[in-house]
C-alpha cells in the first residue's frame, strides 16, 4: 500500500499567513492515521511566488494543492483520498 504524503509549507509566507496552526497536524495525523499518512514540513513550496499570498497557507496532499489550508480542510482531503481507494 502506498502512503499518502502530506507536505505542510513552513515557508515565510505560509507561516505568516497562518500555517502555525497546521503544526498541530504533526501530532494529529499519526494518531488518526497511523503510518498510512506521512507528514513532512517543507520550506517554501513556491505557490506564493506571484501575488498569491492571499491564498496561503498551502499544503500538499500528494499532488493536490490545498490553499488557505486549515486543519479541517487537510483532514477532509486525506479522508477523501483514503476513501476513494486511491491509495
Amino acid at each position, binding site marked *: 500500500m502506498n502512503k499518502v504524503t502530506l507536505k505542510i509549507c*513552513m*515557508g*515565510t*509566507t505560509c*507561516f*505568516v*499567513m*497562518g500555517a*502555525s*496552526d497546521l*503544526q*498541530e497536524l504533526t501530532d494529529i495525523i499519526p494518531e488518526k492515521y497511523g503510518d498510512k499518512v506521512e507528514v513532512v514540513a517543507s*520550506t*517554501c513550496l513556491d505557490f*506564493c511566488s506571484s501575488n498569491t*499570498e*492571499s491564498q496561503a497557507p498551502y499544503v500538499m496532499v500528494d499532488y493536490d494543492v490545498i490553499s*488557505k489550508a*486549515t486543519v479541517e480542510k487537510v483532514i477532509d482531503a486525506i479522508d477523501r483520498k483514503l476513501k476513494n481507494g486511491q491509495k
Partner: protein
Amino acid sequence: MDKNNQATHLKKEILIKTIKAFLSDDFGENTRLIPFEMRPKGSEVPYRCCIYKEREILRNRIIATLGFPIEGCDERILLSNYAKWAQERQKPDEHTLTVLESACKGCVPNRIFVTDLCQGCVARPCIENCKFGAISIVNGKSQIDSSKCKNCTKCIQVCPYHAIVKIVVPCENACPVDAISKDEQGHARIDFDKCITCGKCVSACPFGAIHEKSQIIDILTKIKEQKKVVALIAPSIAGQLPCNIYQLKTALLKCGFYDVLEVAQGADITATNEAKEFAQRMNEGQKFMTTSCCAGYNNLVDKHLNEIAPFRSETKTPMYYIAQICKEKYPDAVSVFISPCVAKKSEALNNPNVDYVMNYEELGALFVAHRIELSELEETQFDVDSSREGRNFGITGGVAKSVVAADKGNAEINAHLVNGINKESIRALKGFAKKGECEFGNLIEVMCCEGGCVGGNDCLNTVRTATKAITDFTKDSKPLE
C-alpha cells in the same frame, strides 16, 4: 477566538499589500489600487452586501494600516493622499487603536434572550425564578423586559428546553475593564481614558473591526531616508517565525535595519534590579511585590488599580533598559521595538528612547513583502548574548523565574503567577492590595495575556508551539549571572 481566522488573514493581507506598495515605485497610486486589486470588477463578494461596501471597508482598513484613525476619516480623500501624509508624519498617532465603523456590524447589545425554542410550558420556571420580575408570557411564550433584566442568567439555568440564551457582544465581553461599548448608533467605541490597550478586543471581534494604527510606514520611511534604524526584538519573537533569532537578525539587516539588539539583554537588567528591590522591600516589611514589566498590567494599575501601585516594583521594563542601551550606543538611532502586543505601543509612546513599535504581524508581512525565505538565511550573532532567563521572559512564569535566578536564594521568593488579566484576576489583585498581603506568594508575576507575551494579540504562532520553540532554543543559552 482562534488566532488564524479570516479576519486576521485579511488584516495581514492588507499589511503585505501596503508594504509592497511602499516598496514599489509609486506608493500612492499602488495603495489607492489595493481595494480594487483585492476585489476586482466582477469578483465574488465574500463577506458584505456588495462589492462597493467591501472595497470601502478595505479602504478603511488601509487607512489604519497607514497609521491614521478611521473614526472621522473623510470619504472624499484618496488613499494616495493618506499614503503621502503617512510618509510626512513625524510622530505616530496618540491612541493606538481605532474602530472601523463600517465593519463593526453593531452586534446586538449584550442581553438575555428567549429563543423560539420556548415551549410556553406550564411549569414556567423562568418566571418563577426571576427575582426581578422581568419575564412575562406574551403570545404563549416567555419574553424578557430588558429594562428590568439584570443579566443574572438564572432563567437560562432553569429552562428545561435550553430556550434562553445570553447574547454577548464579543468586544465588550473580552474587555477586562469595560472600556469598549456601543455608541448611539450601535457601533463600538473605545473610551481611551479607561482602555489599558490590552488588545483583547482586537482579537475578539469576529468582524475584525478593531484595528491597530500601524507605524510600519513611518518605520519604512526612516529606513528609506537611510536613518540608523535599530530593531529591538522582544524575547517572545523566538517562537514566532520559521527561523531562529540569528537568522531573524540577518533578515532584519536585509530589510535595511542598521542593527538588531535583543530585548532579553534589557530583561536581564530588569531581573537583576527586581531581585534587589524585592529583597529590600521584604526587609522593610512589605508582604508582597508585583512585577512591572507588562505594559497592559502597568496601564491597568495606573488607570484602575491605584491601590496596588505601592506594591508594584519600581524597576523599569526590559524595553526601557534596552532602548537606553541602544541610544547610548547609537545616539542618532531611530529605535524600533518589535512587539508581540499593542500594549507595548502605548508604553513606547511614553518613552522618548523608543521611536516606533512594529508588531509581529507587521514584521511577518514585511518579510513576505521583501520575499525573504527565513529558514534559508545565514545566522548573524549578537554583540551581547542574553541569558536563558532573559530569553524566557515572554512565557508565563518566566519573569518570576528570572527574579528567582537573579536573587540566588538570598530572599525567600515564593512566586504566584497571574496568567492573564480578566475580571476575575483584577478582583483578586484588588483583594491582595486591600489586605496588604497575598496568601499564594510574595512575588506576584502579572502578565496581561494568557500564556505570557507568547499569547499577545499580535503573535503569529500558537501559544503552545511558541512556548515549546522558546524553551527548546533557550536550553543552550547561558544562565543569568
